[in-house]
Each structure stands twice: as C-alpha cells, then as structure tokens.
C-alpha cells in the first residue's frame, strides 16, 4: 500500500514541477492579497476632513477647535463663513464632518451652563461616521471637564463641590494600539490557505479526468483511499508551506506579534487543511471540467469567506446566518489563528474549534472517498 502511495506522490510532484502556471498561481495571488489587505484594509479613522463654522469667535471656541485638530483624528480642510458653505462642503463630499459653534458659546460656558456644539456628519460610510462621532464626544467632554476644573478653581471651589467626573479607563487587550493590520493580516493567512488549497486540489483531480489519466489510474491496483492520500499529501505539504510563507511575511514585514505557541498553530493548520482538502476533492468528484470546478469553487468559497468573520463580526449577522457559519471551517481556523497570533491562548481554550475542524474535515474527506468509490464503479 505504502509503495503505491509513494508512487502516486512522485507522480504528483513531477506534474507540479512541470506546471509553470501553477507556480504563478501559488506565488502571485498570496503576495497581492497580503499587500492589499496589509495596507488597504483598515477601519481606523484618522484625519477626518472637517469643515468648521465658528460663529462665536471666542477664545473658547478656538481652543475647542484646536483640540480637534491636535487629536490627529480630524483635519480642518475648510473654514466656512455660512451654513450654506457647510452644507455645500458636505454635499460635495469635500468634508465628512462639520463643527458648528454658535454665537454665545463662550458666554454659556463661562456661566457654567450647557453650551451646544453642533456636529453634522456625512453618514454615507456609517462606520467612519460612528467612530468619528465617538471621537467628537471624547474631545468635547474632555474639553468641558478641563474647562470646568479651571473655572471651579478660579471661583475657589474644590473638586468635590464641582461637577462629578467619571472617567472611563479603556484598556485594549491583544491589540493595544487598535491596529487594523493586526486584525486583518493573520486572517489572510487562513483565508488564502483555503482558497489556494481548495482550488489546487479540485483543479488537479478534474484535470486528470479531463485529460483521461484518471481512468488510467483507476485501472491500476490503486484503491480510492490510496488515491485520495496520494492526492492530498502533496497539497497538504503545499498548504503548509503556504501557511509558513504568509506567516513569516506577517511576522517579519508587517510585524504582527505571535504570542501563542507555534504548536497550536501547526495543529490548527493541519486540521484546517484536512477540511480544505476534503472540500477540494469533493468539488472535483462533482465536476467534469475545470470550468465547472472553477464555477463551483466560486459559489462555494465565496459564502464560506463572507460568513467566516474574516472582516465582519459573526455576532452582527442575523441569527439564521450565524447558524450557517457553524459549518464553515474557515470560521474556526480564524479563531485559532487570531487566538494564537494576538491573544496567545492555547489548546485549553481552542479545543472546541480544533474539534470542530477535525469533524468537518473527516466528514468532507469521508464523503469524497464515498463519491470517488462510486465514480470508479
């Protein structure tokens, strides 16, 4: 049995060595994706283009505006002189946010009354708008507190007599600087592995069928299980090399921390590769031509990707979709990858995910062995 498998392995590697486009497919898409995800994928908000309408022209209003600019979160691109100009800037998209300080702002503050600060925000990108509004709130209340303290001091009041202040100390665990890159780059490791391995496996087997060599193999004494092993081992190795390659780029180039144990990562990757290989073989047992395999992969991998939690949190999806995500192996691998990279947690926390991937892998491989058996008979 071992002999036959080894013979198949030798054949597989020879084929791969001769396939020049495969080398292109193995190298270019991962690099492209890593660069794009590493640099373009960000939900962070800095330098929101802001238009200011200061109708108060007081020291206080200027101080407030300068707090906005010095935070780095806002960049004043225009100083408007009328409400119409503000509206125009937002309509055209020249500015995303507008700060309007009405006359009497400083007077109200000096009297210790509530002073209104009007904020208009373009909500087209709801996420940017939400985050920007959060920063507006922080900056405004920060200024109000400082202003209040000095005012109270000047009037000889102790802090206890003045307004109560409750501050929220925020601690960001695992990603202290809220770097989007740390979130996306480890995710790319998982996603790319799935796309590469499923595509490669399904194409390789379907190509054998197209060329007619599959039948030749089937008339040899090789049994379906041996065939599957002979097919999967090379792609398993390729998948591993791919994981190692992308992981080292993530660590060395993008400087994403790796806090967990490499062993957990290796175990997770092996189990995930089982599911990906199983899926690839299953697709190839359904499809007659490479084109069919291409289309099938597209329609299968896209949902798996969207529902994996790669970019969009699963907890925000409708309940029905959340249930669907339970059969998505990528979902579990992403948790393992982010858990080992950022959280530094081990098997004691990640065993449910590892078990789920093992189960999905066994089911997929079993199904494809069954289907292959049938197509031989």
């Amino acid at each position, binding site marked *: 049995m071992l002999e036959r498998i080894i013979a198949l392995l030798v054949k597989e590697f020879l084929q791969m060595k001769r396939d020049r486009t495969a080398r292109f497919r193995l190298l270019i898409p991962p690099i492209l994706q890593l660069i*794009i*995800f590493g*640099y*373009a*994928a*960000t*939900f*962070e908000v*800095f330098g929101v283009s802001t238009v200011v309408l200061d109708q108060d022209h007081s020291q206080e209003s200027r101080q407030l505006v300068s707090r906005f600019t010095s935070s780095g979160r806002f960049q004043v691109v225009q100083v408007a002189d009328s409400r119409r100009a503000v509206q125009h800037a937002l309509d055209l998209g020249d500015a995303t946010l507008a700060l309007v300080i009405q006359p009497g702002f400083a007077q109200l503050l000096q*009297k210790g*009354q509530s002073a*209104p*600060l*009007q*904020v208009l*925000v*373009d*909500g*087209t990108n*709801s*996420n*940017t*708008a939400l*985050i920007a*509004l*959060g920063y*507006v709130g*922080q900056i*405004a209340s920060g200024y*109000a*507190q400082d202003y*209040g303290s000095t*005012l*109270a001091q000047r*009037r000889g009041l102790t*802090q*206890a007599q003045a*307004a*109560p*202040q*409750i*501050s*929220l100390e*925020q601690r960001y665990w*695992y*990603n*202290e600087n*809220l770097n*989007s890159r740390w979130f996306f780059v480890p995710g790319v490791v998982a996603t790319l592995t799935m796309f590469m391995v499923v595509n490669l496996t399904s194409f390789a087997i379907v190509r054998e069928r197209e060329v007619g060599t599959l039948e030749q193999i089937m008339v040899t004494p090789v049994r379906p299980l041996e065939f599957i092993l002979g097919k999967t081992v090379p792609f398993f190795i390729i998948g591993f090399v791919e994981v190692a390659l992308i992981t080292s780029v993530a660590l060395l180039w993008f400087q994403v921390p790796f806090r967990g144990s490499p062993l957990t990562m290796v175990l997770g990757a092996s189990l995930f590769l089982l599911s990906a290989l199983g899926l690839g073989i299953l697709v190839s047992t359904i499809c007659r031509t*490479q*084109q*069919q395999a291409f*289309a099938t992969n597209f*329609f299968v991998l896209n949902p798996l990707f969207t*529902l994996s939690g790669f970019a969009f*949190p699963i*907890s925000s999806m409708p309940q029905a979709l959340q249930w669907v995500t339970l059969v998505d192996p990528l979902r579990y691998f992403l948790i393992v990858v982010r*858990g080992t990279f950022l*959280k530094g947690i081990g098997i004691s*926390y990640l065993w449910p995910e590892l078990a789920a991937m093992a189960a999905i892998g066994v089911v997929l491989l079993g199904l494809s062995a069954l289907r292959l058996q049938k197509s031989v008979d």
Partner: protein
Amino acid sequence: MNARRILAIARKELIQVRRDPRSLAIALLLPVMQMFLLGYGISLDITNLPTCVYDQEASQHSQALLARFKASRYFRVVKSVRDYGSLRRAIDGGDCQLGIVVPWNFSQQLSALGKSSVQAIVDATNDNTATLAAGYAQSVVNAYAGDALEMRFTGTARQLGAPQPIAVDSRVWFNEDLASRDFIIPGLVAMIMALVGALLTSLTLSREWERGTMELLISTPVTSLELMAGKLLPYFAIGLADAAFCVALAVGWFGVPFRGQLATLFLTTLLFLAVVLGIGYAISAAIRSQIGASQVALLFTMLPTAMLSGFSFPIDQMPAVIRAITYVVYARYYVTIVKAVFLKGSGLAQLAFPILGLLIYAVVITFIAARAFRKSLG
C-alpha cells in the same frame, strides 16, 4: 459597421449563453447569492456585544451604572464575575468581548473627590469592534455622570458654578440611522456588476478559440469591430437587467433609501458596463483558454473592487501609495456614484469628477479591446 451582421452575432452569442449552464449561473445566480449573502452577512454595526461585569463595590451607585449597561442595546451582559482571573478567562476564551470593572471605592471617591473612574477592558482583536464598543461604553458612562450631576446639584447647580458638559448635538446626514447595510448595499450593486460583466465576457472569445469556431468566425465577412459590438450587446442587456434587479432588491427588500434620479443611475451604469465588458473582452482576446481567462478576470475584478474601491474600506484612510492606486481601480468611480445617488441624491453635476473618470476609462478600454482582437486576427 453593418447592423445586420452585429445583430446576427448578438443572436448567436445569446443562444450560446443560454446553453452554457456556467454562464447562466453567473448571470442569474451570482447576483441573487451575492445580494442576499453580503446584504445580510456584512454588517459592521455592533449590538448585543457579549459583556462581562465585575462589580467590586456592589453599591447602589455601581449597580445603577451597570444597570445602564444592561439596558443599552449595544451590550448584553452575559456574565458577572468576582475576580480578575475569571474576567481574564472570559475574555481570553471569547465568551465576552468587553469587561466593565467598577472599583471598590467607586462611590466613595465620587462623593469625597467628585472624581471616579470605571475600567473598560476591550478585546481589541477586531480593532473596529473595539473602537465602537469603547465609544458606546463612554457614552453610557457620560450619561450616568450627567444624571449624577443633576441629582447632586438639584436647583442650585448653576449658582454654584458647576459646569455642565458641552452638549454635543450631532446630526447625521444621508444615512440617518447609521446603518451599515445602507452603506454596503449600494456598493454591492457595483461589485456584482463588475464580477458578472467581466466573468461573462472573459469567456466570449476564448470559447470560440477553444471550440475551434474562431477560424470559422474569421472567415466570415464580419469585421473585428462588428464582432466586438455584436458579442458585447447581449452582455449589455444582461448587465442592465442584473443592475435593475439589484437596485430593485436594494430598495424593495433591504429598504435602502433611493434619493437620486433613476436617469442618473442609468446613464452612469451604461458607462460602467462599457468599462467592465471591455475589460472582460480584452482579457478574452488575450487569453485563449476559458479557464485561464476566467481566472484572470476574477483576479482583476474581485480583489480590487472589494478592497480598493471604497466599497467597504474608506479610501481616505489608506496610505498615499495605495490611495494613488485606487484611481486606477475603475470600480472606485462607480461605487462613489452609486452611493451618492442612493444616499445623497446627487445629480450629474455633483458627480462630474467620477463620471469623467469612468468616461476616460470607457474610451480607453474600448480602444484597447478593439485593438486586442484585431491583433490576434492577423
């Protein structure tokens, strides 16, 4: 250019599409699947974030503050712990993404010093969720502090000179509920059309090459320009139908507001289709195998459209080099247009820049596509 010949080619192409299950799947199934999958699956809004509370003080005040977290729709308090170790385990294991810690001297400090603090521990693996969660937590605490002020200084607050916080009166324009669905779905229309258009047309010439019918086609009196026009005509119709379907679904099913003019959308969609189909056609002329052509088409449309068009990630937050690259991504212009027409109700005049971008692209691509095939004829 002969209209009769163009129509004949168009008819032939339509029959071929109808008989090719893969093309049909791309034309009919893909828009439905992507619309529903992404329409429901992509949401950046956070609600019911699993939260863990650690109340060291367990006083009336701390309970009142935590009750506000429980009442907020952004948080769902799933756990109440009694030590840091359990809090750490809850967040490590992913059971909770936020931990609120009220210190043991919370109300004492508040009454003695007028100052106190609450700790928020956020799982920042997903930095976006973390930023939003911290913002919501901040507003819960601010609201509590504001009410505590009212309670302490009833009536006499102003005479004492107790300052009130600046009241931020925020108004959101164009997407009043700040629903991420309203922001994602219009862009989805662009995404789907880019995919469908390029994937379908990338097959059109390579199919002829693969089946050996290209020589036959070349021997007919059809000129290369007529061939291009005839071949792309059916895909124009399919693309427009898909666009109409997506827009109808966006407005009718997902309830995304449509504030602009249909005519604006129609005209710009025509331009965008010209670009997308032209690119698919050029790929098809350059690569003679169907599988190779569709792979290249996928690589050139999916990733740039999803990542670099402003569809989900804001362009103005990207590094300068990447931002420069986005000007080459044709989908960028159309995504801008669709979002503006849907949410802002912009007209042609306000969209002059992106329309110009698309127009230039359409002209250049048509030229390239027309050249690409003439070469392979010779």
